[in-house]
């Protein structure tokens, strides 16, 4: 009991000290909630952002739905990079986001991927159905999961594959299921595998699923933070655009 109290006090003191440090530093920092599929690209953008503006972007990665729920409960995020175009708009509508700050920062592409170099050849891989488990992101919370279901439905394989589907809570966990080999293949974001040349993949044609427009929004918590505003601007700029495209996303311009 005594120890617990001591530990809590110590934790409070140290977090207070940290806050103090960050408030006297000249450059500001911004807390960004990033959809898991955009992880690698966001890290590179944050590094470029820090170099250009001297501000720091502190990134949190997770499922879009999960972040949205947290934002409605006053999570300390200042910018939200979602994996869909619904939740940022909804955030504004419900008073969590700043009006007229929603924009599409990337258009995601769905890819069927396997770390094994012979597993994925194309849509026929799904029709041949010679695997045990296929991983997708949870369609209830992750837009790439919705797209995966749409693509399988369009190919008329959804009902046959349904018993073999396992769901990751985010596209990040989905990728992890595939990488650990627990699922032989799965639908992930091209952004997650664009920097690896190993394995086998089939970039799903855009006409098989509704475009994954990924929107960003400035949240009210960040409306007075120069770093948050700078981050949004930086995300719209050419440096960010190059990084976004490099990771296999299309741009909306």
């Amino acid at each position, binding site marked *: 009991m005594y120890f617990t109290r001591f530990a809590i006090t110590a934790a409070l003191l140290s977090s207070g000290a940290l806050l103090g440090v960050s408030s006297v530093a000249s450059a500001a920092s911004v807390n960004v909630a990033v959809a898991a599929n955009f992880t690698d690209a966001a890290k590179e953008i944050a590094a470029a952002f820090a170099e250009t503006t001297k501000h720091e972007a502190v990134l949190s990665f997770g499922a879009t739905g999960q972040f949205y729920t947290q934002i409605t409960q006053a999570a300390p995020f200042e910018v939200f990079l979602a994996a869909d175009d619904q939740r940022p708009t909804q955030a504004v509508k419900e008073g969590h986001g700043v009006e007229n700050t929603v924009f599409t920062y990337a258009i995601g592409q769905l890819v069927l991927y396997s770390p094994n170099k012979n597993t994925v050849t194309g849509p026929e891989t799904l029709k041949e159905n010679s695997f045990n488990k296929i991983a997708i992101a*949870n369609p209830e919370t992750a837009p790439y999961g919705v797209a995966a279901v749409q693509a399988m439905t369009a190919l008329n394989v959804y009902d046959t594959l349904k018993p073999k589907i396992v769901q990751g809570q985010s596209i990040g966990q989905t990728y992890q299921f595939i990488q650990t*080999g*627990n699922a032989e293949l799965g639908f992930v974001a091209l952004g997650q595998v664009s920097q690896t040349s190993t394995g086998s993949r089939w970039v799903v044609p855009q006409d098989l699923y509704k475009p994954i427009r990924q929107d960003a929004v400035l949240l009210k918590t960040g409306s007075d933070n120069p770093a948050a505003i700078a981050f949004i601007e930086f995300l719209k700029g050419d440096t960010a655009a190059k990084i976004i495209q490099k990771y296999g996303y299309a741009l909306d311009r």
Partner: protein
Amino acid sequence: MLTPDLWQPIRLTLELAGLTTVLLLIIGTPIAWWLARSTSLLKEVVATVVALPLVLPPTVLGFYLLIILGPDGLGGMFGGLVGVRTFAFTFEGLVFGSVLYSMPFVVQPIRNSFEAIGNRPLEVAATLRASPLNRFITVALPMAKPGFLTGAVLGFAHTVGEFGVILMIGGNIPGKTKVLSVAIYDFVETLQWQKAHILSAGMLVFAFLVILSVSLLARRSGQRTF
């Protein structure tokens, strides 16, 4: 009021917790007996291993289980014999994980009960020519009943309350691995708070009753649980 997306996880969770508890009573009893009776130094090591899930974050267990159950681990090795590629994403995999995760909650109370018996009743039984097995079954087991009850209740309840491990190795398959805690998580994430409320309130009542019953058991038997 109870739609399939509500009762399915409830049923699955009860099945998982029930099977885990039965397995733990079978596996845990000899371990608890040995821990209670042995004077070997090795026993402290085994006791430590059994207690590890109390301290480890579920993510550690989840991470290792994912690898162990997977195609490159033991799961794939043994699974190959029965035509299963991986034990992750299966009910059996969850049972395996739950047995490890809930083991200290079953072994510890039983061990305490065995220890509380002391040497004397067993020695007396021995003078009456009871064989070791006979002594165990007719003397030790009945006297340790409170420990078994407490262990069963705690093991069951702890498995019901499992979340992190299952989230990591389950794959969220309705009817197979989507247990109560994961269902609540999903309902919260998707803003279906009414359903989240129904399940959460149920869990709250359940947890209250479990802890109360354990306390009452302890009171009746005059033994501490932990």
